[in-house]
Structure formats: structure tokens, C-alpha cells
């Protein structure tokens, strides 16, 4: 077997393991799938009526909630990556002829799968709440593509954070900024309604172009957001997360 197909097969084994881990941990299921839905209900049903965004609030908030669905499940990934490094299982894999990156790839892929499932759930609930997008099939594909790309990017960054942290607790804590970022963006209210300082931050932080691009695609107006900036941020996260992960992994492992 070539080393590439070996690496694929090893990653598939590790992915199966990570999926089982996710399914067996109720906290992970809650944080990554149910929590975003709870937040969605809060924003749309409780706060949303008070915000004036120039369109039905559910249409405005759904793109931001998609990003939030991606970020809120990340704590589980960094914690379990860190756990893996501290427990003996990693030393067993090291002395086997197992592809080095398979452990990390398994974590990234399971994160992306979990985030995508959470996003699908958000879209489902959004429709139930009266979400009325104007996107055509191609634009929906764009939405799915960007959500998956963002998930993979966040996955690599989170794996890196999990590897860099000294304890599972601090690994979980390290993802809190990622979870907070959607709030400091145009996800729930337009950035130009924010106080100065916060507004500039919201305009230039990575999640804003992603949210604006999703919003544009869902509204049937792909030029509504800076798609190039969104993709560039995601690719940048993938590269940084990957390089940082591999470096910490070979140091610790």
C-alpha cells in the first residue's frame, strides 16, 4: 500500500474513533448542536424583536448563527485533542506503523462533520421559524462550501490550540475567544450600530466577511459580501492551524 493510501486508511480509522467519542459525550452533542439552536431561539424570539435591521430578523441572523454553530462546538475538539496527548493511547499509536498525521486529521474531520451537522440543524430550525432565503441552487452550494471551509479552518486552529495547551481545561478555555468572536461581528446586529472601537474591530475581524458572504449568498446577492476576504481568512486559518499543529505534535509526540 502506498503511504498516501495508508494515511487515508489510518485517518478513516481515527475518524471512526472520534465520531464514536463525539456521540458518546452528551456535553459535546449539547455544545455543538443544541447550544446554537438555543442561542438561535434566544436571539430570534427574545432579543430579535428589539433590533431594527431592515429585514425580518430571522433572515438577518441566520448567517451569523451558522458561524456561531461552527464556533460553539470547538471546545470539544481542543479538549479531546489535549486528552489524547496526555493519555497513553497516543504513545501506543506512535510505536505502531501508523501515519503521523492521522490522529490530527481524524480530529479535524470529525470537527468539520460536527459543525456541518450543527449548521444543517440551524438551517432546519430557521426554516421552521420563517426563514425565507432567496438563494438559488448555486448560491446554496456556495453557502455549504463556505461553511465546510470555515469548519475545516476552525478545526485546524482548534487542534493547534488543543496541542499547545498544557491541560484539557485550558485547552477548552483557549477556544472561548473563537466562541466570543461572532458576538463582536455583524452576526446579530449591523456593525455600524456599534460603539466606536468595537465597530472597527467588528468590521475587520475574520468572521465578518464570512458572515457577510453567507448573508449575500442566502439573500441571492453573492456580491453582498467580500467572498475573497472570507476565503482568504479561512485558508489562512487552515495554514496557520496546520503548521502550528504539526509543529506542536512532533514536539509533544
Amino acid at each position: 500500500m502506498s503511504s498516501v493510501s495508508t494515511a487515508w486508511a489510518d485517518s478513516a480509522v481515527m475518524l471512526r474513533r472520534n465520531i464514536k467519542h463525539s456521540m458518546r459525550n452528551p456535553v459535546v452533542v449539547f455544545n455543538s448542536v443544541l447550544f446554537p439552536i438555543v442561542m438561535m431561539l434566544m436571539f430570534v424570539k427574545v432579543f430579535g424583536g428589539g433590533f431594527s435591521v431592515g429585514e425580518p430578523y430571522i433572515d438577518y441572523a441566520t448567517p451569523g448563527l451558522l458561524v456561531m454553530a461552527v464556533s460553539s462546538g470547538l471546545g470539544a475538539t481542543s479538549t479531546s485533542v489535549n486528552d489524547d496527548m496526555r493519555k497513553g493511547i497516543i504513545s501506543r499509536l506512535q510505536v505502531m506503523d501508523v501515519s503521523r498525521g492521522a490522529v490530527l486529521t481524524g480530529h479535524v474531520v470529525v470537527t468539520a462533520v460536527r459543525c456541518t451537522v450543527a449548521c444543517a440543524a440551524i438551517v432546519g430550525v430557521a426554516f421552521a421559524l420563517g426563514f425565507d432565503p432567496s438563494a438559488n441552487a448555486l448560491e446554496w452550494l456556495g453557502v455549504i462550501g463556505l461553511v465546510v471551509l470555515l469548519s475545516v479552518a476552525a478545526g485546524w486552529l482548534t487542534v493547534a490550540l488543543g496541542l499547545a495547551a498544557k491541560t484539557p481545561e485550558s485547552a477548552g478555555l483557549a477556544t472561548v475567544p473563537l466562541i466570543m468572536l461572532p458576538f463582536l461581528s455583524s452576526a446579530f446586529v449591523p456593525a455600524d450600530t456599534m460603539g466606536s472601537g468595537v465597530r472597527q474591530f467588528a468590521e475587520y475581524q475574520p468572521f465578518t466577511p464570512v458572515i457577510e458572504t453567507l448573508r449575500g449568498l442566502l439573500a441571492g446577492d453573492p456580491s453582498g459580501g467580500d467572498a475573497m476576504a472570507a476565503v482568504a481568512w479561512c485558508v489562512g486559518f487552515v495554514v496557520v492551524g496546520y503548521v502550528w499543529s504539526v509543529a506542536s505534535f512532533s514536539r509533544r509526540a
Partner: protein
Amino acid sequence: MTSSAIAVSCLRKAYGDKVVLDGIDFDVAAGSVFSMLGPNGAGKTTTVNILTTLMAADAGTVLVAGHDVTAATATATRAVRAAIGVTGQFAAVDDLLSGRENLQMMADLKRVRSPRLVAQLLERFDLTESADKLAATYSGGMRRKLDLAMTLVGDPRIIFLDEPTTGLDPRSRRTMWGIVRELVADGTTIFLTTQYLDEADQLADRIAVLDQGRLVAHGTPDELKRRMPGTHVRLRFTDPADLDTAARILAGSTRDDQELTLRVPSDGESRSLRALLDVLDEHLLNAREFAVHTPDLDDVFLALTGRPSAEAIAK
């Protein structure tokens, strides 16, 4: 020697200023059990880590299954990894998977396509009943057994067991010994580290005693035992006069005037102990303390190095 499963010469390793392995040499014949005996901190785990490709040596050559570990080429490392199985001091099992799933994961990673293998291993290690429970719920002994079962997937030719019975209850320990014997009967080479003299004695064909990074002794269990203090009886008296009398009548005894104790060589069997007590009675002697002492690791260290092990000093 061509039949060596492991050949180590002049192996050195230091962490900064602290020398952990100070040039050790040994050879493990294929199909034999080699035991590295030593107290905590002697360098046993470091040796295992180097031999199993987890750590680079500073100097020396290490051949495992005919491949040069110290060369650290990707091909040699992979060839070694494919030939060995390792069970470390801490059970390397996945807590969130069941016993069966842990074994299946190993089978998948080693591309073993035998549908019966997992069930066979569960049965062999007496884990069938708990096969579908999460490993997190297993007792210490069960985790060790699962750990060893995982190591056996893919039939490695050389198995490293790093203190496989530390922390196990006596019954699980015996089970572990039984499994090791079965493996050897199948022709597997075993490299075993232990802190227990009796474990090395029970299992090993050859024993190397490691102390502060040096091999202080090396041989078959019988050869080593000849160099060790035998079983003896220790008597403590209250009166120096009694000690004098006892030392005179008990041949081969050694006395300690400060402690008022007398060491009498003995096989420790009931008949010879009765005879010894009878002699004391005849001379109207009463020992305040009477203890039968079988040699342990501390005695071995005292005999081999002329000083107690670091741990015994700490006590």
C-alpha cells in the same frame, strides 16, 4: 550473534546534565524472555523508549529485529515498528471505546483482516463479558489485560512490557505471568522491565540489573541468585550475653553488636526453623524478635553494588 532479537551496545542517553543511561550493552536471544530489573529511576523506561523508536539515543547502536534503531532512518523505524508491540506502564487504551472497539481499532490500523481475531483475544484475556462496556469502566487489572491484548494484535515478534504488573493485585499478576509464558511458548521474544525480583526470577531466561544507568549484573536467574544473599533468619536479643551465646552455638551466623542482632543462614522451611528454635530453647535463649528474611530487590542491590538502592535510602 545472528539469532539476537535485540542487540544493544554502548547505549547512552542523557537529559541535559543528568546521565540516564551510561553505556549499556546487552543481547536478547530470539524467543527468550529478557528482564531488566531495577528500582524507579534506574533508566528502564528510557531504555524501552529508545528500543521502541520513541526516543533517540545519544550514542551507541541498537538493533531491534535486525534493524538499526539508532540510524533513525524512516525505513528502519518503520520496519522496527512493524515488528514490535509495546505495553507501557500506563494502560494505553481508549476510555471512550469498548474493549471490543479498542481491539478492532488495532486490527484496522494493522490491517489484520481476520474476523475472528477480536473475539479470540477477548476470550483469551477473559474479557468477553465486558467486551461491550467502555474501557473507562474497567478495573486496573482489566485495563492492563486489554492493553496487552491490543499489543498482541498483528502478532508482533518482539514484545516490550514496561513494568506490566506494577500496581496489580496478586491474582491479576499471576494471570499476566501466565500470558507471558504462553507468548514465549509461541516463540515471541519478550523484553520485560520490572521492579520485582520474583517476577524476573519467575519469567526471565536472562536478567540484567540496571542501577543508575549502568548494568551492574547480567546473567541467568540462577547465576544472579548465587551472587545474592540467601534466605536467613534474623534474631534480635535484649542482652549482649545472649547474643554471645547464640553466636557461639549457631554455626555460620553473623552478628551485629550494635543492633544486638544475629543473622543465621537458613532455607526458611518449617523443619529447619523448628530445629533452630529447639537449639535456642536448649540453651535457654529467648530472642525478642524472630524474622525469616527472603532476599528482595534491595538485598540484590546491596549485594551487587555494595550499597542500598536509592529507594531504600529514601525509605
